[in-house]
């Protein structure tokens, strides 16, 4: 029994019940509909900023990009301008590919020992595909939700919805992103559960956001396609939040509050968790620096002088042997008295 994943599952179930039941209590709608979402958004913004600022306060003393291709040296050798950037433009391209297409994960291989003594490497695209599907779907879903916060709904959102619902199945029309999100998050969960090495390293804090996002997607899909929650009421509600004229609509149903509560928990949890990789990826010194440290001096703000073993100390110790071996020396031994200072003590 994997205790880490049980903890997380139980936590999400408790959160579900908390919202579902809580909203029925007097004042519950205000608590779950107004107070908690506001607090969550503020926690997210303050927390996220705090973390990023915290990282930024630690300097990058050395230029340590991980170079993943040919350096720029001679004009007759083709350099890998994105995988081993030497310019800011190259770094931007590298970061873009990393953030938008998960370039590094795309390289992923699976290493296996075959026939007892042969190592083989196979392109392992599923983690990359699953992760990309998950993040893109989540982003699309999030973006689509802007329609609840904007009046009139901008054209780009309408186009996105058209694209997202291009399959034109059912009424209301099926949005692909929601389905992909749920499928991808389930895949990522099953992977954690069934790949022995990944299960071994997984913590409750890895399962929890997965269950939470599963819950968000699931409740969202339930509301849209099955419970057919009152969309107009919700829009009134969300517009109330945006315009800071809070208004709790009648009868939008417990499911909506669960959905909203899950989102609130996710937002509040975000800055304290590994989800901060969203901010962190921009700050990773092995990716966001150009490999130009031989061309341009990188500065270390806390650099301090250190004690070194100087040539003089070295020669003082070995002078005799050096002279014997006919190696040039700076100072000769006694015979020719030095002009300036006295001869320092000879060490053995």
């Amino acid at each position: 029994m994997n205790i880490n994943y049980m903890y997380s599952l139980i936590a999400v179930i408790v959160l579900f019940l908390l919202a579902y039941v809580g909203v029925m209590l007097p004042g519950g709608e205000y608590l779950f509909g107004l107070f908690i979402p506001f607090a969550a958004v503020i926690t997210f913004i303050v927390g996220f900023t705090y973390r990023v600022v915290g990282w930024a306060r630690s300097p990058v003393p050395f230029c340590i990009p991980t170079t993943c291709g040919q350096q720029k040296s001679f004009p007759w050798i083709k350099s890998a301008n994105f995988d081993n950037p030497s310019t800011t433009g190259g770094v931007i391209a590298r970061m873009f590919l990393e953030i938008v297409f998960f370039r590094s994960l795309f390289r992923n291989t699976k290493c296996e020992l075959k026939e007892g003594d042969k190592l083989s490497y196979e392109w392992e695209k599923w983690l990359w595909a699953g992760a990309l599907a998950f993040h893109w779907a989540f982003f699309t879903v999030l973006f689509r939700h802007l329609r609840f916060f904007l009046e009139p709904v901008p054209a780009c959102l309408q186009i996105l919805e058209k694209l997202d619902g291009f399959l034109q199945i059912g009424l209301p029309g099926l949005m692909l992103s929601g389905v992909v999100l749920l499928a991808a998050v389930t895949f990522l969960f099953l992977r954690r559960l069934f790949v022995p090495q990944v299960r071994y390293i997984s913590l409750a804090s890895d399962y929890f956001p997965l269950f939470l996002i599963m819950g968000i997607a699931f409740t969202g899909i339930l509301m849209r396609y099955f419970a057919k929650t009152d969309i107009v009421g919700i829009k009134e509600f969300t517009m109330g939040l945006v315009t800071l004229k809070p208004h709790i609509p009648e009868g939008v149903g417990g499911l909506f509050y669960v959905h909203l509560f899950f989102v609130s928990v996710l937002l509040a949890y975000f800055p304290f968790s590994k989800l901060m990789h969203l901010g962190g990826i921009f700050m990773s010194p092995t990716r966001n620096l150009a490999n130009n440290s031989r061309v341009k001096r990188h500065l270390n703000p806390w650099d301090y002088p250190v004690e070194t073993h100087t040539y003089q100390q070295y020669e003082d110790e070995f002078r005799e042997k050096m002279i014997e071996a006919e190696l040039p020396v700076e100072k000769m031994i006694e015979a020719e008295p030095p002009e300036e200072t006295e001869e320092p003590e000879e060490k053995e």
Partner: protein
Amino acid sequence: MSDVPNPEELLTNIAPKPPATGWMDTPAEIKKGIACYASNPKSVEYVGLPYPRQWSCFDEDWQLPENWKEIITEGFRERLDRFRSIKVFMDICVRCGACADKCHFFIGSGDPKNMPVLRAELLRSVYRNDFTAVGRIIGSLGKKFKKSIGARELTLDVLKEWWYYLFQCSECRRCSVFCPYGIDTAEITIMGRELLNLIGLNIDWIATPAANCYRTGNHLGIQPHAYKDMMDFFTDDIEDITGVRVEPSMNRKGAEVLFITPSGDVFADPGTFTCAGYMMLFHFLQEKYGFDITWSTYASEGGNFGFFTSHETMKRLNAKMFAEAKRLGVKWILGGECGHMWRVINQYMDTMNGPADFLEVPVSPITGTVFENARSTKMVHITEFTADLIKHNKLDLDPSRNDHLKVTYHDSCNTSRGMGLLEEPRYVIKSVCNNFYEMPANTIREQTFCCGSGSGLNAGENMELRMQGILPRANAVKYVHEKHGVNMLSCICAIDRAALPTGMEYWVPEVDVTGVHELVGNALILPGEGKRTMNLRSEDLPGMEDMEDEDAE
């Protein structure tokens, strides 16, 4: 290697699955054959590092200072404030596991704590407990909760586990290539070892070389006269082989260029043959083009064992390069074939010990090429230098002398992933050898595998670890050996030249190891040389001895 399991045993010993107990509940068992010996107190003392003492990792009591925990915690805090890399890498790992089977030590051992992610978690768990709000809050709920979020207290067992596994990482950065956030285990290991050094927990294969470098200028502790002796010895050998007497100059003021190479090249086979290769190249250039270069006994080490100790020690050892260049009044520095030496030069040197404003932007006096990529650091890699010479047709080469070799090329971790020096050495090899075969794509260039002995792990007592670590590299060599008959593994790293022969002997005994400039030396036609019947190893050149016989007739 009597205690080391044979290759078949080693392969069957690879654990197929993680153990049933969670990693926090599986204390590290420090094994002979895997762990390295503790540092010699004299070496620790010589470089002024704290808490020199006699201790052993196999003892229960490590003779730690009483307040070791405080020292580590304070040191950790300090480094979080100084290195953004550590701070970010402690926070953002999502444990996707992409790095897991990228580590040669994990592939070769199956020990889950050798998965880069878990190696980092060993430190992260303490970080969460001591430095994060969540760790403190959830941790206060109880031990079970603490564990479920991956937090734990720093205990003596944890400290020993750190030591054991931080000296099973060769800082090769292969995991960092695959990590979606670029988390670099090398950074974590570097920082972890720096913390361990605060309480005197180094290994001797790092501490003593570092002390030697500091005193004698090189990690083998070769004193100046002995260094010169070795050079004289090579000079004689070269004369025997080619009939030409080369005249390397040492510690000479006013030379145009200073040459610094790892001292392994001067002292241990097959590095010595690479050294002979450099000497012949410089002689050729001097004779033909008046090239003016000097070696130094003071800065007689390219490698930097301080890099495996602490950033400060790295800086102290590295300082000799610029200092010597300044003292001798050269224009720029040429660097020999070495791996981590070049990571330090490319990514650290100018920052630590620059600006080198007393040097000039390196220009090849022979081709006129300006080495723009070394504009500020003013230090050029010898394969860059040689590739440029060959490109401009400045060398007289007879690649057929290497025809009995079928050569493959092992990219060093540091020059690949900390620099991107991929094509230059290949260009040189292909110009001096007619038979060149690449190993499979997943084992070369930025995806290259470590020799298993990098970052100071090239000791004798950890042979089982080293043979585990070299498995992926050896396996790829075996593949091209069986497919193409490859019999020579070339490389541009002194640790490789020291470690790969042992590993080849164990896994693929038919394959030998060479530096790139040994191949160059063999192909290079020196002005006034006699007919070559031997290679730089004084072995008969197949085909050539017959010709001589015919000539004699």
